[in-house]
């Protein structure tokens, strides 16, 4: 029963959600609404669980003096500060001048942006050290990449401004994006859609049970 009830629930709910796409009647749409609301609520609890789990793991690491434990104190302090401030601030915690918003704007937002900004350096380094043109196919990839990279930015038009409009890098880049690139992307979209539909049906029919992993 520890696996059968969830599998049955998944099947019934999944089939009902598919049915709700086709049947607009209240008897289907109202329960579908309820199921979607339930999913929203359970997902939100999932995020709270994630935060609580992070706290538990890091408390454990501090207690057992694992490697890097002083930094875990910073982590736990940051977590508890955010939770305390947010709890005190109440429903209006995201107001313009709240302490919560200040921490979001001064700590969370800039650090998240900067973490992603590091990628620009690595992509340049990887372009020199790892981008190897050893086959015809890789050469095609490289040529397309170079044309799109230069053609998409103003310097592409500036370099080729003496040419007729259709022969400028930006026009060639547009043609690549609209035609060969688009056809391959559409093929990938269609193929991926078939895969998702198959996987969705496998999950609903109980053939795919990896989400139930764990001891019984």
């Amino acid at each position: 029963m520890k696996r059968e009830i969830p599998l049955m629930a998944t099947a019934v709910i999944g089939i009902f959600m598919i049915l709700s796409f086709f049947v607009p009647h209240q008897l289907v749409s109202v329960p579908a609404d309820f199921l979607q609301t339930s999913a929203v609520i359970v997902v939100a609890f999932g995020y709270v669980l994630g935060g609580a789990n992070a706290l538990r793991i890091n408390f454990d690491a501090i207690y057992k003096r694992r490697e890097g434990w002083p930094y875990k104190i910073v982590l736990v302090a940051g977590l508890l500060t955010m939770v305390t401030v947010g709890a005190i601030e109440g429903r209006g915690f995201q107001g313009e001048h709240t302490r919560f918003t200040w921490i979001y704007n001064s700590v969370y937002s800039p650090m998240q942006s900067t973490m992603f900004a590091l990628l620009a350096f690595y992509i340049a380094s990887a372009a020199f050290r790892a981008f190897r043109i050893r086959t015809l196919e890789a050469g095609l990839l490289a040529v397309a990449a170079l044309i799109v990279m230069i053609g998409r930015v103003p310097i592409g038009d500036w370099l080729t401004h003496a040419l007729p409009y259709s022969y400028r890098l930006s026009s060639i880049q547009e043609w690549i994006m609209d035609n060969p690139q688009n056809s391959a992307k559409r093929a990938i979209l269609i193929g991926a859609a078939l895969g998702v539909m198959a996987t969705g049906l496998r999950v609903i029919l109980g053939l795919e049970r990896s989400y139930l992993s764990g001891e019984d």
Partner: protein
Amino acid sequence: MSLVQRLETFDRRWIFLVVGLLVLLPLIWPVPLPITVSPRVQKFYDAIEALPEGSTVLLACDYDPGAKPELVPMTRSVLRHLFARHCKAIITCLWNGGPGLVDQTVREVGREQGKAYGVDYVDLGYKAGYEAVMVLMGQSIPNTFPTDQSGGITTSYPIMRGIRNYSSFPILISISAGYPGTKEYVQQVEGRFHIKIIAGVTAVSAPEFYAYLQSGQLQGLLGGMAGAAEYEKLRGESGAATRGMVPQSFAHVFIALCILAGNAVQWLKRKEKRA
């Protein structure tokens, strides 16, 4: 050590330094470079121009600070464009890292344009649940978002009078950085509720949306900072995206040279081995 060996093993931090300088210096000393508007950006612009004056529009801002440089300029220009056409905007966010950033952006533009919160625009804030939220909004937006970003009751705002679901809007403008975002709006909302959608997306996800544009599921597309800069040009603005185009250009040329140089080094190495 031969030249080839030195080039093969040199410290990558020199590449980091060059990239950093190529981005930093043009920001300090700007160089004018002309921006050409692409057809899909023109379509995006035309879609907003075609809106009846005074319409209320749904603006889905699904991003977080990781996509700020690409999508915040788009959001600002879109809001200014809507306000210039006396349109109103209802803003939502389905990314848990984004509501604070979106709210800050929206309120800045609202104040700059002299618009009143709750009357000309309202930020409904964040809701967990990905596509389920999108489909729920098709039933009732006030029920899905009972409170707004700052905790106020949604239905108490004048702008929300008469707003039920997607049928209350002539268009959905989706500014998104990934999942959940434009793709899910096309799949779940365009197909079910038949609302016109235009989108602004990050450059990394833009190629995928050309197929939706060609099929008519999207009516206009801004791709990345370049798309934002082209849109700013159409709007007659010179914002962060426009200022970013010169450093973008220099960095792209450098990375292109890195690809060529890296392969030249490998070719020289193979030649040395054969000799």
